């Protein structure tokens, strides 16, 4: 079986700036979701621009369904794209916009009407699709964007930061939709800079950092990598000395910094350390007042991984 997506040392330059270093990976044929994870400026959008046929690679090869996607109608007609951003022209209504996008995909007449009705029903927008975009919530607008990507029944869906700014309910709803589309046989690539978001959605992750594909694998494999990253925890306590005494007895401790109202602990493998901390608090060994993770954000993790790979 040929893969849906295949990159062979594909790179992209914007003039002198390297947007994406030579990157190689494959997405298999058939349904499934892959998360494209990386902090802002990591090259996620650049990679998506290559995959959506907006730009040709500066080097290497990009293949979707076995063909180069750049200005290739045969590939573009099998691909659905939800770009980043949430702005629509003032006064624009959902249905005329959706109709135009359907016509650009080659649909017309009753076929277009049927496709619009079904796409709107898939995203749960049958009732609200006629509204102007300005009267829709952010979640509704995102669902309309997904509807336009589904109109022509694509086999491969590309979503660039689809969860940005969405409230938790709309986020869960969109995740459910994507899961059901993947179950129905669509290959989906979702970019995000939030690990938790992607982890909820997918079994497979591509990690990008500074234009490089840093890691590729399952969520569990990536988590293992992350566990090696020392996480800083600020522990507020009545006695900083008591916290320090307790912490030095544990192997996970990498560094310790005393503060006026507690201590900052740098620990490896927080998934094994945190249950021990919890047990100590419950047993009354630690006079804990507060717990504040300082650098659990993705940027810190990426910094760590980059150093690790250097």
């Amino acid at each position: 079986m040929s893969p849906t997506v295949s990159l062979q040392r594909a790179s992209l330059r914007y003039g002198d700036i390297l947007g994406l270093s030579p990157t190689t990976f494959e997405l298999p044929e058939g349904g499934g979701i892959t998360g494209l994870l990386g902090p802002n400026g990591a090259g996620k959008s650049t990679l998506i621009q290559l995959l959506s046929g907006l730009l040709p690679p500066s080097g290497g090869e990009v293949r979707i369904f076995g063909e180069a996607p750049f200005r290739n109608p045969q590939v573009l007609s099998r691909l659905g794209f939800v770009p980043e951003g949430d702005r629509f022209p003032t006064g624009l209504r959902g249905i005329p916009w959706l109709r135009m996008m359907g016509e650009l995909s080659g649909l017309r007449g009753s076929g277009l009407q049927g496709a619009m009705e079904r796409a709107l029903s898939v995203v749960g927008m049958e009732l609200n699709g006629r509204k102007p975009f300005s009267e829709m919530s952010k979640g509704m607008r995102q669902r309309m964007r997904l509807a336009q990507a589904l109109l022509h029944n694509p086999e491969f869906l590309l979503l660039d930061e689809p969860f940005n700014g969405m409230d938790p309910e709309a986020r869960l709803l969109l995740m459910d939709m994507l899961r059901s589309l993947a179950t129905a046989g669509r290959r989906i690539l979702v970019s995000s800079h939030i690990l938790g978001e992607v982890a909820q959605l997918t079994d497979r992750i591509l990690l990008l950092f500074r234009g490089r594909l840093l890691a590729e694998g399952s969520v569990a494999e990536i988590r293992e990598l992350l566990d090696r990253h020392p996480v800083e925890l600020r522990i507020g306590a009545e006695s900083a000395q008591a916290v320090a005494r307790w912490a030095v007895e544990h192997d996970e401790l990498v560094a310790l910094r005393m503060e006026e109202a507690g201590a900052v602990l740098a620990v490896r493998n927080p998934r094994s350390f945190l249950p021990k901390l919890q047990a100590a608090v419950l047993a009354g060994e630690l006079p804990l007042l507060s717990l504040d993770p300082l650098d659990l954000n993705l940027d810190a993790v990426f910094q760590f991984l980059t150093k690790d790979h250097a």
Partner: protein
Amino acid sequence: MPIYAPSLPPRPVLDQGLPPALVIARFDIRRVLSQRMGRFFGFMFVVSLLIQLTMLYVKYLLNTNAALSGIKDFANQVLTQGPEFHASILTMSGWLTSLLWFQVALVGGGLVARDSLYRIRPLMYAHPVRPIDYLAAKGLFAAGLPFVILLPFVFLPWGISLLIAGLSGPVSLWAPLYLLPAALIIALIMGAVTLGASSLAASPRAGFGWVLGISLGSSAIGGLLSGLLHQPIWMAISPQALVGAWPDLLCRVADPKLNWLPTVIGTFAHLVLWTFVAARRTRPSEAVL
């Protein structure tokens, strides 16, 4: 909100739908028609056309009604005659073309700029839409709009003149042969400038400013150079002057403001320059930045 199991229609067969350029142009036309701005300009152009037709009828009365013979000489001095009159059908002494410039700036200024602002082009190019399709759609709209507006100004005075006075009417039987190409060239110049200016702008408002800036700014520079160097050909750098020159030349006005050579060169230069700018600025690589 219920989630339905995905059930979508079969994928469309390529090349079965409308050409993408027509789809995008039609979308832009519908958007303009649904706006109040379109109604305002519609009203203004209808009033202009009515004034034009009234003037035509006055001319007809002056030539046929003996009761008006007393003021005929005076009226003939005030009203344009012969080729000048025919040329003025499209320009109305600059009023109509100025209104048209204002309209294309306001409507067309956002033509490409709106898509840049709302990042619509990356989405369009992710469909089977080539940059040439996009450019053709926008060009079709930008040039088509002034051309369609000018069509009644070409045909209505001509038709009414034929209707009320036959071949001896104020408008020549052959007038559309001169006025139609003039209207087409005017539309092409306005369309090209609008398209280029809008593609340079980051928002529709800025696009409006760019169109007016280019048309008024180049007129000011052209006027300055013409005055300083005592050579009227410098006015050919102004699209406004070119728009006024073509009806004069095609209707064979005795003393046109610009001669053929500078008008042809100026028009060609503007068409090439602004189409080139628009083509560069609407490439997919620009759309993603």
